[in-house]
């Protein structure tokens, strides 16, 4: 985390929790781990005040603590957890609204999330006792646990991961006896390997399906219960088979930000599929992602293999009203023979599209005619027409369905349910194939044809491609399309000099120089000098441009976070500019009756303030989407 990320966190903390808390975290972020006395010294705050600030911070796990095992009575170290602070503060709004969207029939669910954002962690029984409607709250907790947006929390998780890993390592090292024949480094390596294995187990402790859930009859408590059930649950994203599981009241619960990032990533992926392929395919993709969801626990440091989803599974859960067939174009037929009803009948029944397209290409005459026709078309067509045409194509085909309904219904009469199903399955396969055969963005990867096709996602490749794409978009908008073209050339060629770039880009050298310098300035390009001789004369030196994605993305993320900081700073400032109105708004009686207590001018002022706030906060959460892509996705 860079300093600028920290600035955002401190700003948020100051605004939400006050200056004391912000100073404590700021000191910890700047100085690293500190004991209480040191923290007091560096922050020049009295210890008692710091202790007061640390209580909520630890409760929220914004600050973690560590007591060395070997010196259990020494004073603990405190460490700030910037990732968690970021997730909890910046993503709070998106988290709540996501839960609102996802569980529309569970009004208590967003409340649970809000409370957990406020308190950090809660014992389930305490929450249920305090909740207005215990049954609703129970349902909400259960549902959130099932989809893993909630997890259980153990005491150990109040300590930093690094220290916990160190402890595991020490333990493992102690288990391996010291021998004269084995060198100390070998021993450490062996311990390291053991520790890593153990660590994976520690990290995935919340990953099993029934984490925090018990059978509703309360006979078995947090049992690893019948394996069959857990597998069933993993298969079905709906809660039907896991119905009799409810929240374990003794469990301590907290929000699972890792899982939320997974869900955000899925949204990004689906949105991209919608843009690059189409809405129907995107809906299929969304379903595929949803089927995988129970087995996707986190984006970064994922220890489990990417899950596999089958075509049949997707079909089972797919919205039955989603019309798959009408969004796939039939192979082009001979233009000379008017599109007879026969042909549409043939295509609408399940004809293998591949064999058909082959037979079509066989006839040369129709081909040439087609190309002539195309040529005519292509001249008259502008791209804006094209978009429109795609729409009209869909609507015209829907309107023409009336005329086709004769043979269509005839078809329907003869066919049983099976036939419909099989053609639906075939259409689904076509959408999945579209997702697989997308060389620039391989949304899916087909593994085999078992179970109606086994699919998985190579997240590393896909997210890498998406990062590059997003980055290019930002560059294109910031620096123009030419800069983006140059950047892509450099990316694909590795290291390349100005003249060659100009040649490939079909642009004059003098035109691209300014763009290259601008790209250099914003950190997306680097320059390497390769002297031709021993003297490093500029005229006898190659200048090779290259692009380092990792550092470029990091810089971009930094810029984005800085922008978030500025937006938030402005929100704070906007409030500060209106001290009168703010203090009035803070009054209890005004809170109760804003309408009646404020003058018209004040109302106007409040409206303006709220609009600004809203705009900025919405912007921050949209910027966060970019941070997800560049920093948190893989």
């Amino acid at each position, binding site marked *: 985390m860079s300093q600028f990320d920290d600035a955002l966190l401190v700003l948020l903390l100051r605004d939400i929790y006050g200056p004391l808390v912000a100073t404590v975290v700021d000191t910890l972020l700047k100085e690293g781990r500190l004991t209480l006395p040191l923290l007091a010294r560096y922050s020049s705050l009295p210890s008692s005040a710091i202790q007061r600030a640390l209580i909520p911070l630890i409760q929220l796990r914004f600050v973690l603590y560590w007591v060395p095992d070997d010196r259990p009575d020494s004073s603990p170290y405190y460490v700030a957890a910037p990732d968690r602070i970021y997730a909890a503060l910046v993503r709070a709004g998106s988290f709540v609204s996501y839960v609102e969207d*996802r569980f529309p029939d569970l009004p208590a669910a967003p409340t649970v999330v809000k409370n957990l954002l406020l308190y950090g962690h809660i014992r389930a029984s305490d929450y249920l006792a305090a909740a207005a409607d215990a049954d609703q709250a129970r349902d909400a907790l259960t549902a959130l646990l099932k989809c893993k947006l909630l997890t259980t929390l153990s005491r150990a998780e109040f300590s930093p991961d690094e220290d916990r890993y160190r402890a595991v390592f020490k333990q493992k090292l102690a288990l391996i006896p010291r021998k004269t024949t084995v060198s100390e480094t070998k021993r450490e390596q062996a311990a390291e390997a053991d520790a890593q294995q153990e660590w994976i187990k520690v990290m995935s402790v919340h990953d099993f399906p029934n984490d925090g859930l018990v059978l509703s009859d309360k006979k078995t408590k947090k049992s690893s219960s019948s394996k069959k059930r857990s597998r069933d649950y993993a298969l079905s994203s709906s809660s039907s088979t896991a119905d009799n599981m409810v929240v374990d009241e003794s469990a301590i619960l907290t929000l699972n930000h890792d899982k939320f990032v997974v869900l955000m990533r899925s949204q990004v992926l689906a*949105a991209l599929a*919608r*843009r690059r*392929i*189409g*809405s129907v*395919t995107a809906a299929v993709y969304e379903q595929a992602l949803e089927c995988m969801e129970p087995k996707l626990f986190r984006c970064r440091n994922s220890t489990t293999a990417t899950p596999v989803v089958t075509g049949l599974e997707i079909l089972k859960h797919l919205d039955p*009203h989603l*019309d798959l*067939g*009408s969004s*796939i*174009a039939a*192979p082009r037929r001979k233009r000379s023979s008017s*599109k007879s009803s026969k042909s*549409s009948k043939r295509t*609408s029944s399940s004809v293998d599209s*591949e064999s058909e*397209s082959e037979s079509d*290409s066989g006839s040369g005459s129709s081909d040439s005619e087609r*190309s002539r026709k*195309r040529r005519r078309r*292509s001249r008259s067509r*502008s*791209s804006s027409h*094209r978009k429109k045409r*795609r729409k009209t*194509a*869909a609507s015209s*085909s*829907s309107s023409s*369905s009336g005329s086709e309904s004769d043979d269509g219904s005839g078809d329907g009469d003869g066919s049983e349910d099976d036939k419909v199903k099989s053609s639906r399955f075939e*259409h689904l396969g*076509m959408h999945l194939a579209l997702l697989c055969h997308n*060389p620039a963005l391989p949304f899916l990867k087909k593994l085999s044809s078992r179970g109606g096709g086994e699919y998985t996602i190579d997240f590393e490749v896909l997210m890498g491609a998406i990062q590059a794409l997003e980055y*290019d*978009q*930002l560059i294109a*908008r*910031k620096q123009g399309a030419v800069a*983006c*073209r140059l950047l*892509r050339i450099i990316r694909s060629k590795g290291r390349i000099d100005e003249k060659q770039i100009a040649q*490939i*880009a*079909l*642009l*004059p050298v003098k035109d691209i120089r300014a763009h290259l310098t601008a790209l250099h300035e914003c950190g997306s390009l680097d320059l390497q000098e390769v002297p031709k001789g021993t003297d490093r004369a500029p005229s006898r030196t190659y200048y090779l441009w290259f692009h380092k994605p990792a550092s470029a993305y990091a810089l971009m993320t930094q*810029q*984005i976070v*800085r*922008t978030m900081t*500025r*937006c938030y*700073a*402005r929100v704070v400032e906007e409030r500060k500019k209106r001290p009168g109105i703010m203090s009035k708004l803070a009054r209890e009686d005004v809170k109760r009756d804003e309408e009646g207590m404020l003058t018209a001018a004040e109302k106007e002022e409040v409206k303006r303030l709220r609009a600004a706030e809203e705009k900025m906060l919405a*912007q921050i959460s949209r*910027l966060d989407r*970019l941070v997800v892509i560049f920093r948190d996705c893989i």
Partner: protein
Amino acid sequence: MQVDTNGFHCFKGLVKMLRQGDDLCYQAVKKEDAEKVQSMTKDEAMVYSYIEASGSEGIWTKTIKAKTNLHQSVVQRCLKNLEGKRYIKNIKSVKYPTRKIYMLYNLQPSIDVTGGPWFTDSELDTEFISSLLSIVFRFIASESLPSEDDKPIAPPPKHRKRKSSSKKSSSSSSSSKEKQVSYDQLSFPASYSKYPSLSDIHDFVQNSGITTVDLALSDIKALVDVLIYDGKIETIDDGMSYRVVLGATAENGADLGGDEDGSGGVAWDAYTEVPCGHCSIVDLCKTGGPVSAEECVYFDEWLIQ
């Protein structure tokens, strides 16, 4: 005897001596050419011979001077005379735009000199290129997207009721978790095999009569590559054919599509629409600095929008 004859012919300029490897050989010279040379002064003939030898590459005046050992002014005068008689011409080289280069009047400059079809008068013809780019793009677009003639493999649901329900508000009947999907997609199946290949595009450009310049396959490849770098098209079938990237326009790459909801003309995204995304003093800007978000005028404007 033979030598004598040759000597005579050489003198007459009808045969010229060439060196091929280690051997000397002779080549007959056309009579008109020979007469041309005959009419020149000795210096002119010498200059002419070097220019002639340079072929379609042309020769730099400095090189002529060095090779002939003549004085600058003499060379200049010879060149002027020869140019006046239309025996030689001055050409511009793409590689060395500042040099004065001469070649025989009746020769076409080589690609090295002219820079190929993209150059007009040794300048990169950006307008020509961009018009070709957009034409090629439109061709690929028309080839790789279904048109109004293309039917879906299965018509949309037949029953009016179902159709309307699925078209407008599928969520009303089914569980409300589902999002509303507008069904405006029509894609070729993944097995579609008629995306245009490089030679298809080449044929199209050649037959379209857009340009009289002869474009080689490699020139078309260069154009197509630029379109790929612009994010407007992509390769498919292991680079054998091309298709348009959905949402791309001739003016803008698909990648400029912006955020989902930003369907308007100008593309924006969360970062670049905040003033800081475009700000040139971004590095100076921090709380308490010379400029800061708290006092930023750009923000003032943006907030009013």
